[in-house]
């Protein structure tokens, strides 16, 4: 079996998806590609099932908030080929008041909680998720705390005077 490297992955993805998958960069050797919400499931299924790529281990799903960009949410998938120890990072930029992306739970059961966590923190809605509700925060919380506009500290605190903190 040949050693898998980033170039092979790029070629294979471009063969299959052509323009739909853009190669962004490879910071520190970790190939990063970007795609659209409409193709993400096909792409994940392809890299998981393809004989040559076999990124069959879902390392992580998370999101990033870019409030100043046109498309303000980026959902990041990390997948891993355990055989060759090659990782692939897939980014999907989405926007809207309710950012929506299809759920990867059909491919990996492990995606379940990762997507719930992302929903909990960012309000990214994963369509087709079997049980999309808050996981870490309280159900009563009305905001998605990891979005940049929300403060870290509890704004309802009364005992903490700015005066004492030089603010």
């Amino acid at each position: 079996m040949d050693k898998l490297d980033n170039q092979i992955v790029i070629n294979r993805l471009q063969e299959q998806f052509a323009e739909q998958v853009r190669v962004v960069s490879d910071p520190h050797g970790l190939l990063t590609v970007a795609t659209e919400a409409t193709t993400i499931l096909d792409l994940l299924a392809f890299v998981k099932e393809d004989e040559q790529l076999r990124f069959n281990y879902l390392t992580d799903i998370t999101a990033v908030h870019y409030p100043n960009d046109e498309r303000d949410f980026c959902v990041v998938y990390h997948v891993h080929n355990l055989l060759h120890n090659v990782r692939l990072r897939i980014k999907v930029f989405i926007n809207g008041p309710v950012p929506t992306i299809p759920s990867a739970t059909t491919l990996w059961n492990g995606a379940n909680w990762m997507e719930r966590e992302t929903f909990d923190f960012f309000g990214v809605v994963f369509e087709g998720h079997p049980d999309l509700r808050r996981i870490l925060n309280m159900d009563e919380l009305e905001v998605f705390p990891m979005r940049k506009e929300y403060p870290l500290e509890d704004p309802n605190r009364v005992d903490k005077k700015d005066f004492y903190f030089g603010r």
Partner: protein
Amino acid sequence: MSKVTLAEAPPGVEGAGFFATSLDKVIGLARANSLWPLPFATSCCGIEFMATMGSTYDLARFGAERPSFSPRQADMLLVMGTIAKKMAPVLKQVYTQMAEPRWVIAVGACASSGGIFDTYSVLQGIDEIIPVDVYVPGCPPRPEAILDGVLKLQEIVKSESLNRRNTPEYKALLEKYGIVTDNG
């Protein structure tokens, strides 16, 4: 000679065949030396409590042999670790389930003040929801510090008057926390 040391008797009048002291002090002595802990361990401090209960430090030497996981039979509530706002109602319920007299030790920075986690999700000190008797500093406190906290609590227990739990001051304290008592 045995290595067992007896608890020191409270001050009183001693004579041939009798020893007289006040009931308060005798009961305080008994309570102080058999404090049954309820470990409410949520995070890092819980691991240090594990070490405190373990073979090297051995909390059992101070009369806390049996960790009582049932709040009904516990005397001191050891709150160890961060209490998130999601957890706060649970903690309060555990506290109200305990029978009087009950004491609370806030172990570690998080339980005492929220510690380094000044965030939207963390309760800034358990004294926002329940009254606390002893605060143990540290993040996490060393087992010696936890032991010291228990010893400090023993001092409080020893000197507590029997009537304290029926006083209007105590009731006002609980009322401040919104805890309803039914023992008087």
